[in-house]
């Protein structure tokens, strides 16, 4: 049997990519370690090496094909004595299908009509995939911040963040970016792509892998009058720097009686990624949101990411800006406005409803919207609120929605204990008690470190099904 060469996953979240170039042709012999092809995603370009010895039989996906799903057979490798004809197997049709698949119509790969026998480990249904898939849900309610009739363009969340930084850097030469791999590598998650070219190495600065040190250097630079954007490769690594975020950045204005400002943005991916295990999968929203003196922002879609990032860079206060790694590659509509800035501290109604309110933020919003759709099928009309800013929290928006629906569930991709959800519950008890027709419930990740195994990860993470079940307890 010829060996099937399948489209590889270059990262835990990659589900498709571009087969940029074949470096071998049919009939070539390869041995393990030979580079066969170049694969590209929006994040990275990688060389794809052979792991077996043999002759290239049939190339099934032409170079230059986009949207090739991970696991698609892209070529066959013949062992001694085999001919290419025997290898021309059924999956050939996949090439066309994979290349033309519209991103909007993504289906779970294992249900794709022409998928080969599903033994590709990547296609195991993981919890992170559920989060990711739900994140295609857009708001039904248009954002009041966007003027009527504004042209909308499609953009990835990653690009939206980069554009926000670039626009602010053009306006204000005190703004600079520092962090690991932000410059020459173009960003570990490619969020800073292109910034080095435009702004040069004095303003886009690669740091050594020393979070505690460079968080302090950035904070000191802010104290000295600059406006740093400090990127953490992920907020998991910012644990080493949390002292400067809290003790140096958040408290100085207060301790100096209002003299010493610290206008800095600490940003990077936050929350569970895909199959990266306990040390790389944490939501720090509740941690930072408990600290007076900090602004904490956790956007869901690209428009909010851009508008709030620009606001974060402009404000005089220190900001923790929590992005979501799973969402970076997601495409959303964003208003084509010259200077799109959103107010900090204002929640957004993503879907209007009358029976129950689901409050969430960041990637949880996608799940909440998905849950609302499922609930609608059962005749339950759910309102979905995206908090967007975790500190200061838009209490008024939560209480207003509670007044309307009288029932509320908080859905959070994170632990429930001492969470944003706990905070919302307390707010509803203290200030919305008379509007409550049922207890406010929390639905969140399980109270365990995030496991690696796909099935356990899925069990541990928040899902739209869990949100639906929780809502049904009180409606």
């Amino acid at each position, binding site marked *: 049997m010829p060996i099937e060469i399948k489209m590889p996953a270059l990262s835990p979240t990659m589900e498709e990519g571009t087969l940029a170039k074949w470096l071998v042709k049919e009939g070539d012999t390869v041995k393990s370690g030979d580079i066969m092809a170049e694969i590209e995603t929006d994040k990275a370009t990688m060389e794809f090496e052979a792991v077996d010895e043999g002759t290239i039989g049939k190339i099934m996906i032409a170079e230059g094909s986009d949207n090739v799903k991970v696991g698609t057979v892209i070529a066959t490798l013949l062992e001694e004595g085999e001919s290419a004809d025997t290898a021309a197997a059924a999956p050939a049709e996949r090439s066309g299908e994979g290349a033309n698949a519209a991103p909007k119509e993504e289906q779970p790969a294992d249900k794709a009509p022409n998928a080969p026998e599903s033994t590709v480990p990547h296609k195991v249904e993981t919890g992170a995939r559920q989060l990711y898939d739900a994140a295609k849900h857009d708001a039904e309610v248009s954002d009041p911040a966007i003027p009527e009739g504004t042209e909308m363009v499609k953009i990835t969340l990653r690009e939206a963040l980069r554009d926000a930084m670039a626009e602010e850097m053009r306006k204000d030469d005190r703004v600079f970016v520092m962090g690991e791999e932000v410059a020459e590598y173009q960003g570990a998650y490619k969020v800073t792509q292109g910034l080095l070219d435009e702004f040069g190495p004095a303003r886009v600065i690669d740091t050594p892998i020393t979070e505690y040190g460079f968080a302090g*250097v950035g904070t000191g630079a802010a104290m000295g009058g600059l406006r740093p954007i400090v990127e953490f490769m992920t907020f998991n690594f910012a644990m080493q720097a949390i002292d400067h975020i809290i003790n140096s950045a958040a408290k100085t204005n207060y301790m100096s*009686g*209002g003299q010493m400002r610290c206008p800095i943005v600490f940003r990077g991916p936050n929350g569970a990624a895909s199959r990266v295990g306990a040390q790389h999968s944490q939501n720090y929203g509740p941690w930072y949101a408990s600290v007076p003196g900090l602004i904490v922002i956790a956007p869901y879609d690209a428009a909010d990411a851009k508008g709030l990032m620009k606001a974060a860079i402009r*404000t005089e206060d220190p900001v923790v800006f929590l992005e979501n790694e799973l969402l970076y590659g997601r495409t959303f509509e964003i208003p084509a406005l010259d200077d799109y800035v959103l107010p*900090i501290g204002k929640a957004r109604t993503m879907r209007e409803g009358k029976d129950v309110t689901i409050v969430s933020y960041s990637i949880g919003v996608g799940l909440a919207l998905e849950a609302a759709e499922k609930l609608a099928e059962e005749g339950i009309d759910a309102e979905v609120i995206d908090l967007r800013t975790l500190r200061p929290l838009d209490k008024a928006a939560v209480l207003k929605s509670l007044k309307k629906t009288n029932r509320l569930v908080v859905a959070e991709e994170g632990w429930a204990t001492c969470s944003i959800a706990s905070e919302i519950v307390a707010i509803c008890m203290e200030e919305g008690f008379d509007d409550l027709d049922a207890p406010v419930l929390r639905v969140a990740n399980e109270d365990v470190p995030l496991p690696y195994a796909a099935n356990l990860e899925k069990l541990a993470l928040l899902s739209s099904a869990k949100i639906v079940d929780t809502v049904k307890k009180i409606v």
Partner: protein
Amino acid sequence: MAKAPAARKTEAPQSDPAPNRAPNRERPGEPQSYRASKDELLEFYKQMLLIRRFEEKAGQLYGLGLIGGFCHLYIGQEAVAVGLQSALSDKDSVITGYRDHGHMLLCGIPPKDVMAELTGRQAGISKGKGGSMHMFSVEHKFYGGHGIVGAQVSLGTGLGFAHKYRQDGGVCLAYFGDGASNQGQVYESFNMAELWKLPVIYVIENNQYAMGTSVNRASSEDQLYRRGESFRIPGIQVDGMDVLASRGAAEEALAWVRAGKGPIILEMKTYRYRGHSMSDPAKYRSREEVQAVRDKSDPIEHCKKLLEDQGVGEAELKTIEQEIRKIVAEAADFAESAPEPEPAELYTDVLVEKY
């Protein structure tokens, strides 16, 4: 087994370093003791005396319960800050840890504003919301006053970054103690500062004790001026009890940094007479040890002798003493009588903007 060391010993002569081996990279020159004019010397004397009397008064007020919390006094170390900061220009910035009163006075912050902060009053430099360890004056380019051991080293490196980014010609003087010199973030900062040639002078005020732990008990390399070697940051060890040696070292360090050669370390050998903080009974060292330093190496007595050698009479010195006592007494009176912050002040300055 027992023979192994002996065997190694026979090889020892071959690995002897050549005594006059040239350094493999440029080094700052050997600092010279500063040649102060009589007026300069008088100024140094006044500044050291101000710090000494101010700190003694702070100690008294602490004993009376007027100052609370932690209060770390600078008594004994005066020559370090006076010598170094007298060499700064108004472009330069200063940052330090929690033993900060002396550095603040030298930045030109009025003694009464500092003392009122110590007593927690509205008129304090931080409106009474910072306290002894957390005082700042952006106006005087004094950036704190930081309570976390070693934090100011990274922050000071960032101030140096800002000087370089803005090309304003300034240098950051970042003070820290022998205890902080063992913190990890210090080395992360050293690395970046040298990598990016930042204008920072790292001043290690080695007063021999990190709280109750002597340098030798806490530091595998106790010659702290060498701590930058693996980052290619040169270091100079300085007699921090001698204000002229201190000033001379500042001249050399500033010349190095202002020439764009990157950071430099000054290890200032000094001694604190009092406990680590007011609540430290200082049982880890003998009274004789402290007394010996006071008798033999006191920086103020040393300066006084130099002044006497230059013909400054006892009457003039007495007048100075009285002036200083008056300033300190007024600061203390002010700090005791000034009102506490308004309760509404509790909620101000948490954030700068409204959301």
